[in-house]
């Protein structure tokens, strides 16, 4: 039996390195250094290397006190926990170097878990009683509604061409056979991870931090850990569906790591090159371009399967 129960641990630690890589690429494109890999001698009392910076951030947040606002309801405390549990469970269904919980409908389960994570984040933000969180929540719901269609259609194109709903059975190097689905899913991942053209719901210069405005201390640490696991889950889903060459053992790990590295590189380049959409522009654009691409992808899959 495959050791799929190791997936969340791999997801967390891989996610930390991916997050570091993301920050580094982002900084290099902007002409900065980013978190240093080797810290100079004079600062060795602080740290020797900043590669684990996202982990330090999370551990620091867990070692701080937590302030609960008086206006907050009990869901303010509960929903980060549920969001973390959703992301944690999603790790079992996403193939890590080909290893995942074998279940014939894993794609559908993954959809609901990814959506559940965002929904709990929205519920927690709105329960905090801050107006910034409410504005962020409204924007997030709008993005979620506009984004689910291309995300689901893009992955269902592969489900149609393989006649299965299990992620493991539809893995492959599909960026060549169905590039439209790859682009649609890539854009959907950008929205789900709140990256630059679509970071409308946590726009720092407009609404402080959107849904997470009132979170601090341990609850913010939990949300950060959720974010890191979500980054890994979505990137691994993309790498598994579009950048995977069937292999076993060490070769599988090599291909998997190369795939997730390439995906994060692309995400970081897009994140650093674009500025933010307005919410109306974003929803209109999402319902225009990625939706059209995903419908083309579905038509292509149908043609490949039933006509050719």
């Amino acid at each position: 039996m495959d050791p799929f129960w190791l997936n969340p641990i791999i997801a967390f630690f891989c996610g930390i390195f991916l997050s570091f890589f993301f920050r580094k690429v982002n900084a290099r494109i902007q002409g900065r250094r980013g978190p240093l890999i080797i810290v100079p001698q004079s600062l060795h009392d602080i740290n020797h290397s900043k590669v684990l910076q996202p982990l330090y951030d999370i551990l620091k947040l867990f070692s701080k006190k937590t302030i609960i606002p008086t206006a907050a309801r009990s869901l303010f405390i509960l929903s980060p926990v549920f969001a973390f549990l959703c992301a944690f469970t999603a790790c079992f269904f996403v193939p890590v170097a080909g290893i995942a919980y074998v279940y014939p409908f894993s794609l559908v389960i993954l959809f609901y878990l990814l959506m559940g994570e965002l929904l709990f984040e929205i519920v927690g933000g709105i329960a905090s009683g801050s107006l910034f969180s409410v504005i962020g929540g409204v924007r997030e719901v709008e993005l979620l509604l506009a984004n689910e269609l291309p995300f689901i259609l893009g992955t269902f194109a592969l489900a149609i061409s393989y006649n299965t709903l299990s992620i493991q059975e539809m893995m492959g190097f599909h960026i060549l056979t169905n590039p439209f689905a790859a682009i649609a899913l890539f854009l959907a991942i950008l929205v789900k991870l709140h990256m630059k053209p679509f970071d409308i719901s946590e726009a720092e210069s407009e609404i402080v931090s959107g849904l997470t405005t009132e979170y601090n201390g341990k609850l913010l640490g939990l949300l950060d850990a959720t974010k890191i696991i979500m980054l890994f889950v979505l990137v691994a889903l993309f790498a598994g569906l579009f950048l995977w060459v069937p292999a076993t053992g060490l070769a599988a790990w090599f291909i998997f790591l190369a795939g997730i590295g390439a995906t994060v590189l692309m995400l970081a380049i897009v994140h650093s090159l674009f500025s933010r959409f307005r919410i109306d522009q974003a929803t209109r654009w999402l319902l225009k371009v990625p939706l059209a691409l995903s419908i083309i992808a579905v038509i292509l899959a149908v043609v490949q399967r039933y006509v050719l």
Partner: protein
Amino acid sequence: MSLSKIFMKKSPWVYHAHAGGCNGCDLEILACSGPRYDIERLGIKLVASPRFADILLVTGPVPLHTKPFLERVYAQTPDPKRVVAMGACGCSGGVLVDDENYSIAGPVERIIPVTVRIPGCPPKPEAIFEGILKAMRSF
């Protein structure tokens, strides 16, 4: 040294609390996160809300009408926290030092406890960096 202090030192998040300054210091803080000085090299991050912050970087002489807000920002920052008073105004009141000034509630240290002061009008980015490092090491 307890475990939490080690992690506090490794990832300080800075909130810039603007308390009636003239924007000179603010521009130097922006220069800090630019390509030349880049505070992200050491994992320091400028955050948008005092809820996320470990270090408050206060600029300006704190006018009377800003005083309650500064106190509230300090209360909203979760413990452990440090305050860095920045610029001549933040350290001592600067050109607004006169005790009979009707609109100034005094330098930052009269309102909230200050750990590190960064003098200069405005301080150079190197000085800001050094001040944040001192506050980091004091955790």
